[in-house]
C-alpha cells in the first residue's frame, strides 16, 4: 500500500491547494500517471503517481489546502499493508474557499533547494560539563586537546583568580591547587587567610614607625572578631580545677604500648570532656539565627580547635566529633593541628563549626575572656596546667591545677546553662571515672 504524501516540489512549498483530481477511488493507474493538480505560489503543478496499482482512497477534497507531508492518496500497489496509516489531513490556517481574496502572502520562493522546515531542532542538555575548578574543560571543535603545561613552569589559573591573588597579596607560586592542577578562587582565599602580614620595607635608617597593610588573614580575623564581639553579649565564667587524675592517665596511656600510634595530649581529654558535657547539655551547641528569628539546635558537634599558626589564628573544626571515640578524636585533633601548622587548612575545614576550644595554656597563660567564634554559642579556654598547692583530704598537696574559662552568648545561653556545662567539664577532668556515668 502506498500512502503518498504531498511532497515539497522545491518552490518553498509548505502547503498547497488541491485543485483537480485526475483519478478517483477504484481507478487502475500506472506509474507517472498524473494524479492531481496542485496550486503552489500561484502556479499549477501536476503530481505524477509514484507507483502503479489501484487507487484505494483520496484523502483530501478539491479546494482544500493542506500542509506538505499530508498523505493525500492511498494506492494499492499489491505489496501489502503500509506501515504508515494515513494521517488526517491538517487544515492550513489560510481559508481555502477564496484564494483570490486571501492576502498575497510572502511564500518563501526557493529557486534551488528546499524550503526551511519548522521541525524543532533537538538540542543537547546543559550541565554535561565536568565539574571542579581544576578539571580540564572538554575539547570543543577547533580547540586542541593539548596536554597541560609541565608542572613547575607557570602557575595555572583563571584571569579573575590572578586578579584576586594580586589583590589579596597571595603569591600564586606558593599555592597548591586543592583539585587538579588549576588554582581555584577558593585556594587563593584559603592561602590568603593563612598568610602572614607583610612587613613593609623600611625606607630609611632611623625609622620610628613601621606600617603593615591591613589585608589578608589579619583583615578577615579583625572583621570576624568585631562582628562577634558586638553582636553576641559575651559572659565569661571561670573554674579552677585539679586535673591531676587526668594528667596521670595521660602519662599512663602514653607509656602503654596499646596507645602507641595515638597522639594523646591533655587537650584531647579536655575536648572529650567538653563533648560529654555537650551531650548532657545539648542546648549549648546551638546558634542564633537572626534572620529567621530562630535558635537552631545543632545535632552534630563540629568542634573547633583554635590554632596559632605562622600565618595567624585559624579555627579548623572536627566534623561530627560527637561520633568519634577517643582514638578517632585524638587523630582528628592531631591532624587538624599538623595541617594548620603546615598552612594547608582548607576553607571547608574552617567552616560550619558549632563550638570551640582554645588552648591558651599552650602559650603559658592561665585564663582569659575568649571571643566567640562567630555563629557559635560557647568557647572554652583551656589554660596552662601548673603544679599548684591544693587541698586534698584536709592536707595541702601539690596538684596539677588548671583554669577553664568559658565565654558564652547570653542571648541563647543563660547563666545556669553555662555554669552547668563548665562545671561538668571540670568534674570530668577532675575525676575521669565520672565518665562511667555516660554510657
Amino acid at each position: 500500500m502506498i500512502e503518498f504524501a504531498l511532497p515539497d516540489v522545491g518552490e518553498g512549498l509548505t502547503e498547497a491547494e488541491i485543485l483537480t483530481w485526475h483519478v478517483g477511488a477504484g481507478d487502475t493507474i500506472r506509474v507517472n500517471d498524473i494524479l492531481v493538480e496542485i496550486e503552489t505560489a500561484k502556479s499549477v503543478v501536476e503530481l505524477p503517481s509514484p507507483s502503479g496499482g489501484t487507487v484505494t482512497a483520496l484523502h483530501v477534497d478539491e479546494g482544500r489546502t493542506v500542509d506538505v507531508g499530508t498523505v493525500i492518496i492511498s494506492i494499492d500497489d499489491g505489496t501489502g499493508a503500509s506501515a504508515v496509516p494515513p494521517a488526517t489531513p491538517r487544515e492550513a490556517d489560510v481559508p481555502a474557499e477564496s484564494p483570490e481574496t486571501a492576502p498575497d502572502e510572502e511564500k518563501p520562493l526557493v529557486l534551488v533547494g528546499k524550503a526551511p522546515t519548522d521541525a524543532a531542532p533537538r538540542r543537547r542538555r546543559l550541565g554535561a560539563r565536568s565539574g571542579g575548578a581544576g578539571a580540564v574543560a572538554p575539547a570543543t571543535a577547533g580547540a586542541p586537546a593539548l596536554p597541560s603545561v609541565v608542572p613547575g613552569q607557570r602557575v595555572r589559573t583563571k584571569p579573575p583568580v590572578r586578579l584576586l591573588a594580586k589583590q589579596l597579596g597571595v603569591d600564586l607560586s606558593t599555592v597548591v591547587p586543592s583539585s587538579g592542577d588549576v588554582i581555584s578562587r577558593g585556594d587563593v582565599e584559603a592561602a590568603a587567610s593563612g598568610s602572614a602580614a607583610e612587613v613593609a620595607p623600611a625606607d630609611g635608617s632611623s625609622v620610628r614607625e613601621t606600617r603593615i597593610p591591613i589585608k589578608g588573614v589579619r583583615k578577615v580575623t579583625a572583621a570576624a572578631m568585631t562582628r562577634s564581639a558586638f553582636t553576641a553579649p559575651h559572659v565569661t565564667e571561670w573554674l579552677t580545677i585539679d586535673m591531676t587524675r587526668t594528667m596521670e592517665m595521660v602519662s599512663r596511656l602514653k607509656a602503654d604500648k596499646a596507645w602507641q600510634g595515638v597522639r594523646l595530649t591533655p587537650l584531647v581529654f579536655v575536648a572529650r570532656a567538653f563533648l560529654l558535657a555537650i551531650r548532657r547539655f545539648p542546648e549549648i551547641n546551638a546558634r542564633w539565627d537572626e534572620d529567621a528569628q530562630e535558635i537552631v539546635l545543632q545535632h552534630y558537634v563540629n568542634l573547633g580547635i583554635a590554632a596559632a599558626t605562622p600565618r595567624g589564628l585559624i579555627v579548623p573544626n572536627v566534623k561530627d566529633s560527637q561520633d568519634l571515640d577517643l582514638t578517632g578524636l585524638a587523630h582528628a585533633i592531631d591532624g587538624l593541628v599538623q595541617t594548620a601548622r603546615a598552612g594547608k587548612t582548607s576553607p571547608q575545614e574552617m567552616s560550619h563549626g558549632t563550638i570551640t576550644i582554645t588552648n591558651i595554656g599552650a602559650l603559658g597563660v592561665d585564663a582569659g575572656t575568649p571571643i566567640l567564634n562567630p555563629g557559635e554559642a560557647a568557647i572554652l579556654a583551656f589554660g596552662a596546667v601548673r603544679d599548684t598547692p591544693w587541698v586534698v583530704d584536709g592536707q595541702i598537696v601539690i596538684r596539677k591545677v588548671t583554669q577553664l574559662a568559658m565565654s558564652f552568648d547570653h542571648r541563647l545561653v543563660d547563666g545556669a546553662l553555662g555554669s552547668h556545662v563548665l562545671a561538668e567539664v571540670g568534674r570530668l577532668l577532675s575525676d575521669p571515672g565520672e565518665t562511667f556515668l555516660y554510657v
Partner: protein
Amino acid sequence: MTTASVIDQQFERDRPDREGRPMFQLIDPDGALTSVGEQVGVSVDLAQELYTDMVMARRLDKEALALQRQGELSLWLMSWGQEAAQVGSIRALRTTDMVFPSYREHAAALCRGISPADLMRQWKGAAHSGWDPAESRFHIYSLVLGTQTLHATGYAAGAAMERTDEVVATYFGDGAASQGDVNEAFNWAAAGSLPVLFFCQNNQWAISTPTATQMRTPLHVRAAGFGLDAYHVDGNDVMAVHAVTAMAAERIRDGGGPALIEAQTYRFGGHSSSDDPKRYRSDDDVASWDLRDPLRRIDLFLRASGVDEDFFETLTAEADAFAVDVREACKSIGGAPLDDLFDRVYVDEHPLLDQERDAFASHVATTGSEN
C-alpha cells in the same frame, strides 16, 4: 568627402552584425532532407543510433522530473528539448576527448556511459558530483556559470604542449556566454591557438532572460571576433549537429586552433523544477518550437526512410524498461555521512580537520547525528 565619412566607410564592415550566418541544416522540422541534406546525403544507420540515444535521454529526463515531483529528488534541471544538440555533438567526438560540461548535459553524459544513479546523485542532495571524470572523460558538472570554459582551456593548453591531437570540448549556454570567464576563455584559447571546441547550446532562455536581452550580436559572430572559427547549426537537427561537430573537431585536430559552434535549440521545460516558465514566456513561443522538436523530426525521417515499426516498438519498450531502471536507481542513491567528508577536503594531513572529525564523532556519540 569628410573625414568622418572616410572613417565610416573604412569601418562599415565591422559594424555589429546582428544577423549572423544561416544555420547549417540537413533535416527540416518535418523530417525531410533539406537541399543541402539531399546534396550530401544522410546516413540512416547513424540517424537510428542517434535517435536511440535521444529517446533514452528524453525518457530519463521525464522520469527524473516525475521523481522530483514525487519528492525523490530535491531539484532537477531538464535537458528536455536539447537532446539533439548534445547527442549529435558528443557522438561526433572521440570517446577519449575530454569534455567539460555545465550542468544540463544529461544526454551527453548518458552517451559517455554515466549511469542514471551517478547522474542523479547531486540532485538528490547526496553528493556534489556523481561520477569519476577519469572513467568517462566527462568532467563533473559546474554550477558556477561558464567556469568550465577556462578549465577546458587550461586542459587544452596541456594537450597543446604535448602535441596530441585531442580536442577538448566544453558546453555552455547562451546566458553563460555573458560571463567574464567565458570571454576570457575565448580570448585565451584563440591567443594560444589551443585545441578547444566551445559548444554553445543556445536554448533561447537564461531562466527568464531571452537571448535578445543577453547579447547584441549572435554568439557565432562574437566568436569570430575573438579569433575562433565559428559555426552556426540547427541544434535540433541531430544529423547537422553531428556533421558540424565532426568537421570542426577535425580541423582543430589538424592544428586549426579553437572553434565555437552555436547550436540553436530550445529549453522545453523551465530552468529547473523550481521554475515556472509560464510567468515569462508565451504558449505561442513554446508551440513554435514544439514544431521543431528534435525527436519528432528524426522519427518522421526514419519512417520516411523505410525504417519499420519493429524498430520503434522495440525502442519504446527499451525506453520503458530504462525508465524503471532510472526510478530504482534514484531510490537507491545514498549519501556519505558527514564524518566521511573530513577526509575529502585535503590530500595531505590537516590538524584542524583531524580535531574537528574527532569533535564531531564525540558529539554524535553523546547527542546523535541529524542524519
